[in-house]
């Protein structure tokens, strides 16, 4: 009796172990794919141009843009960058009729779009380079 149970169970055990490994690998796969696709959706996002490991503070590779996005060093911003050259409330991105407008919030070191320091509100075009402190972003609009 026991022999028969044991003989059946050895196949069951192997199947369970492999299902377990498969499900873990699948989860890890979803995890990795999840990182890559968030940026590749048909949305608007900021892409980091600097090499991530060259910056001594935490920056994401991609920031997806919502209707209003504020960037700065303080915690109440959507995009928090701990760069000492970034002001507490540095800039604001506002969506209006499908376009994004960049507004500098009187930052100490200013915001540069394609190398020009901006004074008031600027409409962003696909491929604009936004420099804030030591960080440079690429503005990508895929809509």
């Amino acid at each position, binding site marked *: 009796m026991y022999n028969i149970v044991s003989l059946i*169970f*050895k196949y069951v055990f192997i199947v*369970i172990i492999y299902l377990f490994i498969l499900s873990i690998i699948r*989860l890890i796969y979803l995890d990795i794919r999840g990182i890559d696709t968030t940026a590749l959706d048909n949305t608007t996002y900021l892409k980091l141009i600097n090499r991530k490991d060259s910056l001594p503070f*935490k920056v994401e590779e991609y920031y997806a843009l919502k209707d209003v996005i504020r960037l700065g060093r303080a915690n109440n911003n959507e995009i928090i960058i701990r760069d000492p050259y970034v002001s507490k409330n540095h800039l604001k991105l506002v969506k209006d009729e499908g376009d994004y407008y960049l507004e500098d919030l009187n930052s100490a070191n200013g915001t540069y779009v394609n190398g020009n320091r901006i004074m008031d509100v600027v409409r962003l075009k696909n491929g604009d380079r936004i420099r804030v402190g030591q960080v440079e972003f690429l503005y990508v609009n895929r809509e």
Partner: protein
Amino acid sequence: MFKKRINYKVPRNLLVLFELLALFLIFAHDKDNFNRNTLILGMALISIIYISSFILLRISTGDNYIFLIVTMLISIGIIMIYRIDPELGMKQIIWTGIGILLFFISYFIIKSIKGWKNWTLLYGGASIALFLITFIFGSRIKGSLNWIIIGKFSFQPTEIIKILLIFLLASYYANYEKYKKVKYGSYCLIGTLYLFIAFLFVQKDLGTVILFYFVFSAIQFIYEENRRLILYNTLFFLISGLIGYFMFSHVRVRFETWLNPWIYIDNKGYQITQSLFAIAAGGFFGTGIGLGYPDFIPEVHTDFIFSAICEEMGIFTGIGLIMLFLILVYRGFKIALSQDEKFFKIVALGISILFGIQSFIIFGGVLKMIPLTGITIPFVSYGGSSMLASFIALGILQVASEDLNLEEIEHE
């Protein structure tokens, strides 16, 4: 998000199913005189593992896979140990319970205390102190002088020194800019390491010698800027290995039994040949649990558990075990890559190398791919101190998988 939640349950439930079936198998085996303690302890373990992985998902923002992988390894190990010797199996269940507790304790301690990277000298000093304690109070069990016996308990200090070594290396290379300016800074580190290796060699603990050397070399290879030191290190190891081969008989025995164990089958090659017989007898699907003869192999519950698993659960389970270690080490490297703080990056790297090399040495040794050195498979083999140390290492890895940088800045 919702879909993801459901997916996390799949491996967890498979694990519970696996453990319940194993418990049922024990029940089917001893149906006449069933031991109630087995049932209670078994159910306790299953619920502890289930609840722990559930809690971990809540309290930790880091990796969710390493704990699951490890609990699967433990389940396979406990089933096999219980089959070989029910009493040891019960002990192993208790050790696992304590281990999971230690996992959470080390997780909270490592996370709450800041400044781990500043205590380089402490790690070195503590390791040397532990070695000296082993020499003074240690007892020789099975040829190796690496056990300390206090009352009923015995433990191996080398298991703790492994973790201290990783901390030592990580704190050294995390403060590399500072130590680089000290004259012969890196030479001091190499000197300390060779002191450890010399201690281990005198203790005749060859497996741990190789383990320490590989962990050190890997981290040195990644972080040392003076590349010439890596060459010196390799050369020194080769030469001292050769000298060790000719001077010490216990090193030579390992090599002879590796090259051709069959002519020594009646004495020193007995263990490895029995291991090979056992793996061959199992075939692809194994003989079935309880139907093989793993008892023929000496030390089957610790070093040779892999052969017993291959015999009774099949080479497919053996391959599964290796794959589990593969994804565990992969996760460890992934954690190291995404960690921003350098100290924990190196610690995560060191721990994953430790798990990887340790399992590689013993899998390779048991399969006669490399010379055999007695060492435990982390989480699978029977052994209290090995289990506890592995769980502490896992707790540290869990901390390293979290985003530590963000929290530190919020204190400003």
